[in-house]
């Protein structure tokens, strides 16, 4: 039976979930959407970020503080990953998509195995006093363990968007997506620009990981459940549109919550792809992408 309370709760929960999805997809929006590198290992790196946060939380650190501490090591990890990728492929004349997918699929498996060896295959979670309770407005109940991670998403997305749009090095990252050769003739090293961008993308994984583990327990293979959803968000947003990434993630989050509330929770994983197919049928360049 239809209930306005259920509808309201589903929409609010969907918006908050969508905001978290946007955090998860942000790194891929940079690597795949802007650099055109299909880094399917990104969700697994998010899980690695969650385990990094879990480790520091065991020492009593707040998950958000742990994520901030993780930005530098994850940025450096991103630099190393791109260096490896460029040595293997780009300096030998470029990679085809299949080769790149294979490389990042392999990386994803390696990271998962390393996580299992280091932490075991059990679910891990963090406990912080402020994420146990809920915010109540009449019939609307918003758990803090969802609200706080959801607020991390827009903050991180705004920071990255401001960086890309307001700084010279951010502008160079946007430029490398369009014209690599023109960028080198303009005096910038495209490889260095891409390496920096990949570092930023990987650094976002630790913040997204903090959001993930604050919402609920995480296990080493958890990234696999996110791959399809984050790719759908990046493609439907228009390959590299950072604000579009947030909007699409929220649309998918709300749609999933409505399907789970009114139809069947087990149908939710298919929602992102259904929206992707419908969206691309009307706008092949994505909803926020420029027509080519």
């Amino acid at each position, binding site marked *: 039976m239809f209930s306005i309370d259920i509808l309201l709760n589903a929409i609010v929960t969907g918006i908050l979930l969508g905001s978290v999805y946007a955090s998860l997809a942000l790194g891929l929006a940079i690597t795949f959407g802007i650099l055109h590198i299909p880094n399917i290992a990104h969700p697994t790196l998010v899980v690695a970020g969650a385990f990094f946060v879990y480790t520091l939380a065991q020492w009593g650190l707040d998950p958000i503080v742990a994520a901030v501490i993780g930005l530098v090591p994850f940025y450096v990890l991103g630099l190393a990953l791109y260096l490896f990728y460029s040595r293997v492929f780009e300096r030998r004349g470029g990679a085809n998509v299949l080769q790149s997918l294979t490389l990042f699929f392999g990386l994803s498996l390696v990271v998962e195995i390393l996580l299992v060896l280091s932490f075991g295959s059990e679910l891990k979670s963090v406990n912080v006093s402020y994420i146990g309770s809920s915010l109540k407005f009449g019939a609307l109940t918003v758990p803090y363990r969802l609200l706080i991670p959801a607020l991390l998403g827009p903050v991180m997305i705004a920071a990255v968007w401001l960086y890309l749009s307001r700084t*010279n*090095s951010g*502008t*160079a990252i*946007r*430029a490398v*997506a*369009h*014209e690599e*050769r*023109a*960028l*080198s*003739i*303009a*005096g*910038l*090293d*495209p490889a260095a620009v891409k390496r920096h961008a990949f570092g930023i993308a990987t650094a976002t994984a630790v913040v997204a990981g903090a959001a993930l583990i604050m919402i609920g327990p995480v296990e080493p293979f958890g990234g696999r459940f996110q791959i399809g959803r984050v790719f759908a968000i990046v493609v439907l947003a228009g390959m590299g549109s950072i604000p579009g990434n947030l909007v699409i993630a929220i649309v998918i989050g709300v749609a999933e919550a409505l399907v789970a509330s009114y139809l069947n929770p087990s149908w939710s994983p298919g929602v992102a792809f259904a929206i992707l197919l419908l969206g691309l049928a009307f706008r092949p360049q994505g909803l926020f992408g*420029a027509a080519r």
Partner: protein
Amino acid sequence: MSEIVLSMKGVEKVFGAFRALGPLDLDLRAGERLGIIGPNGSGKTTLINCITGVYRPDRGSIHFQGRDISHIEAHRRARLGISRSFQIPRPFNGMTVLENLLVPLDYCHIDGSKEERARSVLTSVGLAGRISHPSESLSQLELRKLELARALVGDPKVLIADEAMAGLSEGEIDEVLAILLALNRSGVAVIMIEHIMHAVMRFSERIVCFETGRLIASGTSAEIAENPLVRRVYFGE
């Protein structure tokens, strides 16, 4: 006579069994206006790519201001002062006209504000009114001007204008020529690669002609116009 700013000695570029360029000896003097002509496939673009660092020559050396640059990367050559515009404009789409110029200014050490420098260059090429427009909205002539502005903003010593006038009307050609001449008067050596013969003849102090990767003639506009080898290549005489 002014000093040699760019010098190529025995430069060769081979793709498989095909010799695209050379062996080539060619010098460019500071502040010179050099025209390069030749039919399609004669090696002009390969030459530009060797100078700008897109290709590394298989043999020979390229010196810029006395420094061997034969094997350094394209972006480092640009920072030294070798700039180019592209035959097919390659704007950074998704950015405004001003942002297109801020990208190369990222590495430049200039006096004053970088934005002011970008605005000044855009004004000099006649794009002052289009500064905040997205580059996708520019006309063909405006795109050519943006290409030139982006090449100029880093204060180069040498500019290579690769068919900067292709597809433009006579009036538009005059506009681009005026920009290039003004730039040259400020001391920048300009290499013009062009199929529009009257434009390259008007502009160049010296013209070199290529055929199948080799330099077959060199001289003033009048000398080139009368050169029998050039006339054979262009008119089949």
